[in-house]
């Protein structure tokens, strides 16, 4: 098992361990914590959007509708696709975070 780091959710102070190979959301659920809303757990639905305010992480594939290109480098990410490389501090996405993502990816576009 790879080394585990500590993740702290700033909004509620919840702390839990997360191995480098596991998504923050999955580690939270597995340990019975409820701090971040759980949706698809696979980078698609955007429900677990967070901002990483401190620490390093790797990100897995995420829908650009919820995390537009370039925004991940600022710490905006889906918690299900955040793999910690150090201890992390995370806060839940604000309405403003979500609005700014949606402006970059307009609703209702035909997928083809």
């Amino acid at each position, binding site marked *: 098992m790879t080394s585990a780091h500590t993740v702290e959710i700033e909004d509620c102070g919840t702390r839990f361990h997360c191995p480098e190979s596991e998504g923050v959301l999955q580690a939270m659920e597995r340990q019975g914590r409820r701090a971040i*809303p759980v*949706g*698809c757990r*696979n*980078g*698609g639905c955007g429900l677990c959007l967070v901002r990483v305010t401190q620490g390093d992480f790797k990100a897995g594939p*995420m829908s650009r509708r919820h995390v537009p290109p370039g925004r991940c480098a600022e710490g905006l990410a889906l918690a299900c696709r955040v793999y910690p490389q150090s201890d992390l501090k995370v806060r839940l996405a604000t309405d403003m975070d979500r609005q700014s993502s949606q402006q970059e990816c307009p609703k*209702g576009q035909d*997928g083809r």
Partner: protein
Amino acid sequence: MAISGVLRPGYVQVRVLDMKAALEHYRDRIGLDVVTTSNDGRVFLKAYDEFDHHSVVLREADEPGMDVMGFKVADEGELDNLHEKLLNAGLSVEEIQPGDTPALGRRLSFIAPTGHRFELYATMEANPTGPMVQNPELWHAEPRGMRATRFDHCLLYGDEIDATKQLFIDVLGFATTEQVVAPDGTVIATFLSCGMKAHDIALVRHDDKGKLHHISFHLESWNDIGHAADIMSRYNMSVDIGPTRHGITRGQTIYFFDPSGNRNEVFAGGYTFYPDNPVRTWSTDEVGKAIFYYERALNDRFMTVVT
């Protein structure tokens, strides 16, 4: 009444973030067979009990969701009739000649008021690995994974569900089998059939256009639903809810997610619908039972998690 016009759901094209992970999911877990990969990188799959060339198309993209759902029509003449009806209904219809998609004949493509793209076609080449027709064994080789028998239906979320519902009824000949209605008469959800299944497509009212709630795969039995649940736990797949039963359709079900967050369903049972059956209506104060008959409550994700 014999089935004519639109026969059934034929294919669905789904966007995935990572093709390798998607193939592991749809091929190894759900049990679909890969048929071919096209020059543009799309992967075509089918369930073991389907005759036609393909029923599921995966396209790698940077955003999940559904590109298009296709319905098979009885014959080319019927396709021409439906073309005229769609134009008379004021829709913008693109007729696409064969060539860009393996094994598929000419097709009609249009966007419904909810923002979803639908296609109609009458011709698709048969797949040589389809079910046997002479002294037919159950299958060529025993099915893998969840043993999906076919692509069954989609539940789609969108804003103008009344207009899309009317399109399916008035132009495409579908019938409403079941619905959820608010006290003010607003239809929240509608279930539509083009044949004798409890639904071939369902629509739920939602703020955004063009959303996918789930694509559904038919399994043979409640036993196979349990087997699918075993597979989901064994491989740590993302489960939404189930095994459970829907009040609507009475189908036995599990909702779960593909590796890109698109919701899938495995579905067994469901009643047989005849065109003379009355519409079954649920009121919003009983919507929990309507959707999840055993839990008797919606989960948080039902109304909010879509791709």
